[in-house]
């Protein structure tokens, strides 16, 4: 269902004034854009195995509704067409073809899932339609030379381990590093980031051991890593194995500095089963404000988020961080469209998406900014490190960026 058109507010003039449009610029449109409307398409798993993520699409629709009530973007209303694909790649192909060929959207936004996005990847390049800010952490979306019509959004797996590498080089330049990783695309993506981040000092890795998802336990791998004499442990594991690795390392008396990938930072799902006392000192990353974190209780931008949720998405959960995610990505897209001004061609959409400079959405951690360029299609490349204190994740140090040297 598309977001309903709503009456133009008085703030349209304000939005126009805010836009950085040269006064003499000529209006240029591709399919999906006009004087009154910008059509945006999306597929989301509203049903099926990944339907928990469906709330992202709903939060985004609510955000665009708010923008429309405030006068739209440069006077144009967003017509957001979000369709259910049930997390099934064939359905994604069908729905995206509908969006591009029948609904004639200007761009496709935040399609969710690595397999679903892989299924439409080639199609989007052939059709030259922007596949913007895809909702997956794989690194392959940042490849402007081969795929100039596709861009990711969230920090990708390689970015994350590159940041761990930098932190290790800063804090323990003589560290001996042990790596445990899951033997698939996700694990290998993470491992590559770590090695890239270490660069010439990749020989600091003294042991790297993998495991298969089908293995019952990874105790022997942890023992093997301890035997390498490493004093830094990079733990690239999915939740079940993360819990096992944390507990095993503690139980055998191995006390390295331990980096845990962002995939498994859940306190309830990973650290509690591993043992909260055994998890003290773990280091991981964050980039969004956590709605359950009390330090944001009086934060003006988080209050904005809360008000938005109450008014435009009252059914949504206020403590679900995926709603913060949806809000933040939607805000990023609105920024891109504002920058486009009256030149709403698909080419210009990609050009503006690749020209975000120090953009800081409300709900991003202070100091983390979105930067893109013609050769940099990875919007969020900085995160803040956080250490587990036995109860919650406490952020520390400065925001670390993978791109700025």
């Amino acid at each position, binding site marked *: 269902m598309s977001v309903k058109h709503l009456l133009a507010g008085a703030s349209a003039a304000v939005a126009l004034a805010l836009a950085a449009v040269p006064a003499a610029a000529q209006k240029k449109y591709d399919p999906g854009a006009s004087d009154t409307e910008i059509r945006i398409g999306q597929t989301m798993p509203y049903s099926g195995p990944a339907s928990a993520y469906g709330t992202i699409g709903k939060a985004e629709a609510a955000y665009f509704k708010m923008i429309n009530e405030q006068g739209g973007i440069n006077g144009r209303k967003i017509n957001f067409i979000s369709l*259910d694909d049930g997390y099934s790649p064939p359905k994604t192909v069908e729905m995206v073809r509908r969006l591009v060929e029948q609904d004639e959207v200007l761009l496709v936004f935040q399609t969710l899932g*690595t397999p679903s996005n892989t*299924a439409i990847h080639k199609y989007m390049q052939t059709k030259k339609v922007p596949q913007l800010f895809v909702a997956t952490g794989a690194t392959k979306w940042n490849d402007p030379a081969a795929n100039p019509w596709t861009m990711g959004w969230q920090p990708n797996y390689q970015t994350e381990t590159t940041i761990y590498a930098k932190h290790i080089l800063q804090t323990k330049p003589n560290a001996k590093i042990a790596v445990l990783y899951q033997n698939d695309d996700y694990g290998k993506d993470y491992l590559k980031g770590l090695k890239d981040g270490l660069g010439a000092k990749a020989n600091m890795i003294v042991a790297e051991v993998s495991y298969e998802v089908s293995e019952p336990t990874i105790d022997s791998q942890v023992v093997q890593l301890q035997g390498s004499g490493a004093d830094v442990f990079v733990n690239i594991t999915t939740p079940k194995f993360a819990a096992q690795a944390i507990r095993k390392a503690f139980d055998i008396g191995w006390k390295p500095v331990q980096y845990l990938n962002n995939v498994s930072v859940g306190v309830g799902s990973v650290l509690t089963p591993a043992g909260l006392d055994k998890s003290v000192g773990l280091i991981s990353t964050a980039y969004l404000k956590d709605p359950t974190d009390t330090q944001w209780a009086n934060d003006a931008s988080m209050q904005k988020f809360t008000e938005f949720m109450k008014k435009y998405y009252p059914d949504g959960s206020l403590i679900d961080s995926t709603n913060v995610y949806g809000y933040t990505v939607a805000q990023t897209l609105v920024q891109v469209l504002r920058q486009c001004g009256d030149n709403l061609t698909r080419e210009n959409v990609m050009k503006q998406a690749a020209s975000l400079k120090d953009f800081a959405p409300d709900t991003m951690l202070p100091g983390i900014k979105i930067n893109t360029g013609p050769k940099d299609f990875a919007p969020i490349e900085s995160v803040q490190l956080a250490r587990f204190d036995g109860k919650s994740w406490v952020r520390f140090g400065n925001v670390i960026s993978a791109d700025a040297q």
Partner: protein
Amino acid sequence: MSAVARAADTPLSPAAASRRRLQWIGLAVVLVAACALPFLVSNYRTFQFTLVLVYAIALLGLNILTGYNGQISLGHGAFYAIGAYVAAILMDRFGVPYWATVPVAGALCLAVGFLFGLPALRLEGHYLALATFALGVTMPQLLKHKTLEQWTGGVQGIVIVKPDAPFGLKLSPDQWLYLFTLAITVVMFVIGWNLIRGRVGRALVAIRDQPIAASAMGIDTARYKSLAFGVSAMYTGVAGSLGAIAIQFVAPDSFAIGLSIALLTGIVIGGLASIPGAIFGAFFIQFIPNVADQISKAAPWAIYGIFLIGFMFLMPMGINGAIRLGWARFRHRKSAQREGG
């Protein structure tokens, strides 16, 4: 005179003969319309109708097994997946042309289906349903397994190149693919029709309705049952390969258990043990989820469920059954009018 002569040739009564003639005319009209379709609608719609044809082949296959032979399968998505992966792997790794992958997919699924049918002989009713369910649930995980990964591409799946129209025909790839799929659909339906209206079909139905009487009459129950499994899997495999070529992508997530359930839903909604029912069912599984999504984002499956219940309540014999019933009533009223007048 001539009417009498024809009556002597065939056992058909004049009324039945005229009905048969009407059916042939209707079939010809449908075929012509199907051929004209891609030139009347957009490429996107053409693509959707290609998928309808693909599902129709799969549903006909499942109908042979479940509708005619009474063996319930909750795992036909697995055969569909095998067909799709055979096409994708042959095209991607071995450079085999797309059209050549379809018979290979069919042949492999025939063999796999027949072999699966052998142990399944010991199982009946709910037990067979569970065994096939296991097959459907296992398949996506099997496709991800690391020993197969070099062929299947693991979780990432395989992207296939879309074939262009051959011989310099001025057709879009979607139009060509539709016509290609339509041709195969017609062939598969003719084969299915020949199979079912003859000795084999009667044996399958006899085994479904009266297994003991059937074997007492000398029907080799075991052979026919595993044959039904094999043929059914072959149809579904052919459909899978065509589906993969149309979608241009295969991944384990494409063949989750929902696919198997959708196929079973399709044959029940379309009409069990009926050939046209496969086509009606295909329309249902292709278009009703989209309609449900249009109605509600919050609970698309609940809307889908309401559609299901509605269809089953209003058309307990499936769409094909309802059409037959409607047609019979119409004729009955007409003949009553004629007698009255």
